[in-house]
């Protein structure tokens, strides 16, 4: 299953009944929520393994989540959220209230119940 498969193929509703699933809470703040239907909190479910290159699979990680969000939840202006395979600089990613740099960044393997937060730095005063 190549990664260029249509967006809907990886969405919640298409998971088979028997495949292990990872329920997640995803939050956007600092203005990023404006790109996601102006909704801060989202509950999604991902498969526990995902396609990775030539017919192989990998455990679902944050890099996959970012791509999934871009393809499935993002409503506008992808360039404000992603930059290549990662998030745009200026966005902080949190894994259960820790900076993702402490957790392996994009390689962090998602676990059921994880809360992943994307925040854009604020500037007002």
């Amino acid at each position, binding site marked *: 299953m190549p990664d260029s498969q249509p967006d809907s193929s990886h969405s919640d509703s298409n998971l088979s009944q028997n495949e292990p699933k990872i329920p997640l809470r995803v939050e956007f703040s600092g*203005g990023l929520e404006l790109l996601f239907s102006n909704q801060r909190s989202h509950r999604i479910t991902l498969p526990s393994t995902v396609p990775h290159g030539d017919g192989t699979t990998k455990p679902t990680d944050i890099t996959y989540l970012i791509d999934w969000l871009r393809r499935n939840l993002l409503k506008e202006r992808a360039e404000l959220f992603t930059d290549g395979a990662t998030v745009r*600089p200026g966005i*902080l990613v949190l894994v259960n*209230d820790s*900076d993702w740099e402490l957790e392996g960044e994009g390689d962090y393997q998602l676990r059921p119940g994880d809360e992943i937060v994307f925040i854009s*730095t*604020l*500037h007002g005063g």
Partner: protein
Amino acid sequence: MEPAKLKLEDYRRYGRQMILPGLGLPGQSKLLNASVVVVGAGGLGCPALQYLAASGVGRIGIVDHDIVELSNLQRQVLHLEENIGKSKVFSAAEAIKKLNSTCRVDTHVCAIEAANAISVLSTYDVILDCSDNPPTRYLLSDTAVKLGKPLVSGAAQMFDGQLCTYNLDMGPDLGRGPCYRCLFPQPPAPELAGSCEETGIFGAVTGVVGTLQAMEAVKIIVGMRDPGPSMLLYSAMELSPFRNIKLRSRKRDCPACGIQGGRISDLDYVTFCGGPRPNWEERGL
């Protein structure tokens, strides 16, 4: 530190905090001997200045180039109606001197820029970022790194706030915590970096964040701040409004504070952040 310098009146004024465990006479002496500069006498700067002055910080600097406008008064609680049209720095200085005439207040009626940042900020122990735009935030962080001083950074927008202390001395073994650039090597998309004029701001949100900035500065001065890098997020409308985040360490490849740091001395901060922002005041908002 010269504890003997406290006057009888100081004991009467600061008694409620001097009996606190961990503060005491040594802590109050540190506060009275400390200097803090607040960059921006707006929504964040006003409450920060109030509580810094009330707690007895010996010397307080205020930096701002703006004048007080009616649209500021829904959040900038040091500025009185009668000071509309006057310099924010003088308005704020006058206000905090009335709270505590024993504080020395230094006024800097200027915009902070690459050309003056070092000279304006170098004589203070702690720098508070109460500014309202990305170029100033990068400039303050880079300057705090150059000067080796902690930067207590607050930000607020709509119903949200963020608080983080950058370049904090974590002790002899650990060096300094991350700088603003370690976390945000590039500025946000200008489309997401709306100003208060553009996206709105609720006054009490800046009040909470600015007051917490004063608290952070005091903790750093008296030596009661846990050195671990962290950021506090505030979302006033959420049922659980605060979230504390554990942050990364300093990045070795940071252009400002990394092992090859100091590579940003001739940066045009405004261009780096996507050019000047529109003047919303002139557009009638």
